[in-house]
């Protein structure tokens, strides 16, 4: 690998192709960087900040920073791991994350990252927001209690489905997901279980009805191996290209 197309990530040389972000190059090389709002099929967003690394000594989000030759990237350091843990703890107190009753338990990226990073406690005071569920749609339940505001469903519905079913409203800690209907109910949108937006939620907000807890504990996505061992599942779909 020539010097002009690689950077150093925690003492490991990572090759990259023009246009790839630090995150894409790392994942393609089999190095996992924690993330929630990043998805290989969508343009990077840079909001969850879980993928924060230090590039040449300065903090940056690896999903939005283009890879450049000779960069020195720190990811797996005690300081950065501590920041990521704190960010996860913030997300855990912001919503109502009651895993025992969640159908996505074992498949949830927030949970899996908590395990990966050894988050055993929420640390902060819990906010316990009131977020009523929307069960109006015949095929899909929306449980906003678990929303981490990654905007993946918004991006999927906008960019892939062309339906604009989801959007954000409110500001700051009151920011929340809304649907494209005057009634505010999913049943009054053209949302369908076949939509891309129905497939991308990293946590347990968008859930198919009549299909809970189908996989036994022990056989779920992140039961056998930690999320970092699933790095292949997050590789760029078409390296170097942003769909």
């Amino acid at each position, binding site marked *: 690998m020539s010097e002009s197309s690689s950077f150093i990530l925690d003492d490991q040389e990572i090759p990259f192709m023009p246009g790839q972000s630090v995150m894409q190059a790392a994942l393609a090389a089999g190095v996992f960087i924690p993330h929630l709002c990043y998805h290989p099929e969508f343009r990077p967003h840079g909001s969850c900040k879980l993928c924060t690394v230090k590039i040449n000594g300065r903090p940056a989000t690896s999903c939005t920073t283009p890879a450049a030759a000779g960069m020195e990237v720190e990811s797996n350091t005690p300081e950065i791991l501590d920041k990521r843990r704190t960010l996860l703890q913030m997300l*855990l107190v912001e919503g*109502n*994350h*009651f*895993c*025992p*009753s*969640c159908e996505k*338990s*074992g498949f949830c990226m927030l*949970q899996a990252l*908590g*395990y*990966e990073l*050894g988050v*055993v*406690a*929420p*640390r902060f*005071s*819990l906010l*316990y*927001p*009131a*977020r009523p569920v929307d069960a109006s749609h015949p095929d899909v339940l929306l449980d906003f209690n678990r929303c981490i505001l990654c905007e993946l469903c918004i991006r999927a519905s906008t960019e892939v489905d062309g339906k604009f079913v989801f959007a954000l409203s409110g500001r700051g800690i009151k920011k929340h997901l809304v649907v494209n209907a005057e009634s505010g109910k999913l049943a009054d949108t053209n949302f369908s279980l076949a939509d891309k937006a129905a497939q991308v939620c990293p946590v347990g907000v968008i859930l198919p009805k009549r299909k809970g807890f189908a996989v036994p*504990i022990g056989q779920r996505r992140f*039961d056998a*191996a*930690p999320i970092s061992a699933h790095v292949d599942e997050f590789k760029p779909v078409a390296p170097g290209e942003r769909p």
Partner: protein
Amino acid sequence: MNAPRKLKVATTSLAGCFGCHMSFLDIDERLLDLLEFIEFDRTPLTDIKHCGPCDIGIIEGGVCNAENVCVLREFRANCKILIALGACAVNGGLPAQRNHLDLRDILAAVYVTEEGLVPGTQIPNDPELPLPLNQVHPIHEVVNIDYFLPGCPPSGDAIWKFLTDLLTGHTPRLGHGLIRYD
């Protein structure tokens, strides 16, 4: 060198279901090994009612009423190490699912407006009954907590690993498969 003295351990269940205690018993015959190193003070297993000076206090359940607060404070005052055991102690868990409701509405719904109540039913006000708090809280919001062991319940293996780490002087590390939120 003499064998080290046995560590005193107290346990209690606040707003919990005793599931974590059941899981504790799930360490099965290893419980006998454990008893080589520890002796119990206040715990549902011994039926001792108040906690004396202890090395380790293990708390199951969150804080949902005034009595929970008193018990938790008693543990904190007496235990060098306090452990939050299980989802409810860690983040409020199932009892905290009431937190988006106003307690007044809950009490009224259960004791006043519910259909089919025996005539004359009123909201219980016996001083013997602890008053519920407006919201359920995880225990770290009430006293300082030293260690957290999440899970609903944490598995017997997780509890065993956690306690043996602690008893042998290691900072507890659960690792994949033992750290669980569900």
